[in-house]
Every structure is written in C-alpha cells, then in structure tokens.
C-alpha cells in the first residue's frame, strides 16, 4: 500500500471518529437537558399537587348540603384529579427520563395543572398567569414541539370549558364565545419567542459539539506533524 493511500485512510478514519464523538457529545448534552427538565417537572408536579390541596382547603374547604356541613368538592378534585394529572408525568420522568413521550406527557400535565388551578381559584384572571409561567418552564427542554403540545392542550381546555362551564375558566357565566381565541393569541405570542429561543439553544449546542470536533482535528494534525518531525529527526540521527 502506498504511503499516500495509507495517509488518506488514516485521515478518513480519524475524521469519522471525531465526527462520531461530536455527535455523541451533542446527543449527550441534549439528553442531559431533557433529563434535567424531567426531574424539575417531577418535583414541580408534586409541589403543585400540594399547593392545589392547600388552595382548595383555604379557599373553599366546606360546603353546605341543606344543614349538613360537608367537605367541598374542590378538595376532592384537588386530591384526586391532582393525583391523576401528576401521576403519569412523574412516573414517566422517573422510569423513562429523556424520552419524547415523557416531555410531551409533562407538557400535557403541566397545562392541565394550569386548568385545575384556574378552576380551583374560580377562574381568577391572575391564575391564568400560571399558563405563561408553565410555557416558560417547558422551554427549559429546548425542544419546541413540546410548546406546541402545551398550546394545543391549553387552547382546547379554554374552548371546551368556555362552552361547557365558563365560570370555571373565566369566572363569569357569559363570556364572549371568542374569548378563548384572545387567550390563545397571547399564548401563541409567547411561544413564538420561546420557539425561537429553543431553536437557537439547539443550534448553540450543535455548535459547541462541532467546536470540540474542530479542536480535536487540530490536535490530530499537530500530533501528526510532530510525529513526522520526530521521524525526520530520527532519520537524521541515523536511529533507523
């Protein structure tokens, strides 16, 4: 085999190895981002559950059925519906961290938490801010389709509850039929920028991985040059 041919093969092999390592680094970075966000949401979901029970106990702990004092339905909703919303995302974050299914289930769960908290506070407009906070937190995944899932869930929830039970979502019995569109518009406004941010973050992660590959390639080049010099020096000394 000629020296030129051997050098070409060595370069191809080194290139493949470096490119592969860059891809591995990029994927590892993405996975760590996903897993870290999964862990954060698992803790947040449990925190929201406790908070929802606290809200239910504080705002409307009891109701009256005739002369009988009874625990208000909101308390049971907070306990059992809260548990139902929390259980799947937390289980997936625990058993299948980093997987696409997990972060989309988290997005659905988080938006359902917004819906439940809005209901428990009687449709208070201030509680709607939870939606925007949740979208910002979902952007921690740096995976923009997750934001689309969240948006679809919150828009559908507002549409259906706006028709079926408007007090639950807007706090008034007869809102305009199009009010859900107004809320959805601001959500879309918010996620437009979050999507840009996610895409930029992904690009930065890719650039970081590729920068590492370029530095590895430089190092490989320097090692080869030094080897050539060492061989030339050995030849000059007559070592061989």
């Amino acid at each position, binding site marked *: 085999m000629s020296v030129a041919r051997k050098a070409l093969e060595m370069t191809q092999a080194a*290139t*493949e190895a*470096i*490119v592969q390592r860059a891809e591995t680094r990029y994927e590892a970075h993405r996975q760590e981002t996903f897993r870290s966000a999964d862990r954060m949401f698992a803790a947040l979901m449990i925190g929201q559950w406790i908070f929802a029970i606290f809200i239910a106990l504080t705002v409307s702990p009891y109701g009256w059925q005739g002369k009988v004092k009874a625990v208000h339905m909101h308390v049971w909703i907070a306990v059992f519906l809260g548990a139902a919303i929390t259980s799947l995302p937390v289980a997936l974050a625990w058993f299948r961290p980093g997987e696409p299914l997990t972060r989309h289930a988290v997005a659905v769960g988080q938006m359902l938490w917004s819906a439940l908290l809005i209901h428990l506070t009687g449709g208070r407009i201030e509680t709607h801010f939870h939606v925007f906070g949740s979208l910002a937190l979902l952007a921690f995944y740096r995976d923009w389709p997750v934001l689309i899932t969240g948006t679809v869930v919150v828009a559908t929830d507002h549409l259906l509850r706006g028709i079926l039970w408007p007090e639950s979502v807007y706090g008034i019995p007869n809102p305009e039929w199009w009010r859900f569109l107004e809320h959805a518009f601001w959500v879309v406004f918010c996620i437009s920028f979050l999507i840009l941010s996610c895409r930029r973050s992904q690009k930065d992660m890719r*650039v970081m991985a*590729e*920068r590492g590959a370029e530095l*590895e*390639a430089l190092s490989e*080049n320097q090692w080869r040059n030094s080897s050539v010099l060492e061989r030339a020096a050995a030849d000059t000394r007559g070592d061989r």
Partner: protein
Amino acid sequence: MTVDTNIGTARKAYDRVEVPAPGGGTRSLTPNQFETLPLRERVSFLIEGTAQFFLDGRPISPSEAMRT
C-alpha cells in the same frame, strides 16, 4: 462592556479561509461559509492541514484561527 453569549454568531478570530476546491485549486470562504460546510469536510481539512486561515490578509495558524 458587552458579552456575546451566542456561540453560534460569536466573532471569529479569522476573516477568510482558503480550502481545497473539489475540482482542484482552492476556494476562499468567509467564516460563516466555512461554518456551514459539513462537519466531516471541516474536520478533514483541519486534520490534513489544508485549510489556510487569514486575518486582515495575513496568514494565521489554525489554532489561532479557532480562538473566538
């Protein structure tokens, strides 16, 4: 003082790079054009030492060029 935290568009330490052209000879690229080449191609140029970097018309070493 301002700090550019965006890695993707951080200022490069070179303003031009010459790399081998597919049909022979060389082609001159801006940093952005070089960055958009496939990684495999860039790595190959750097390993072979066939990419020649320039700053203000003066040739600089690849290690100097890779600093941002």
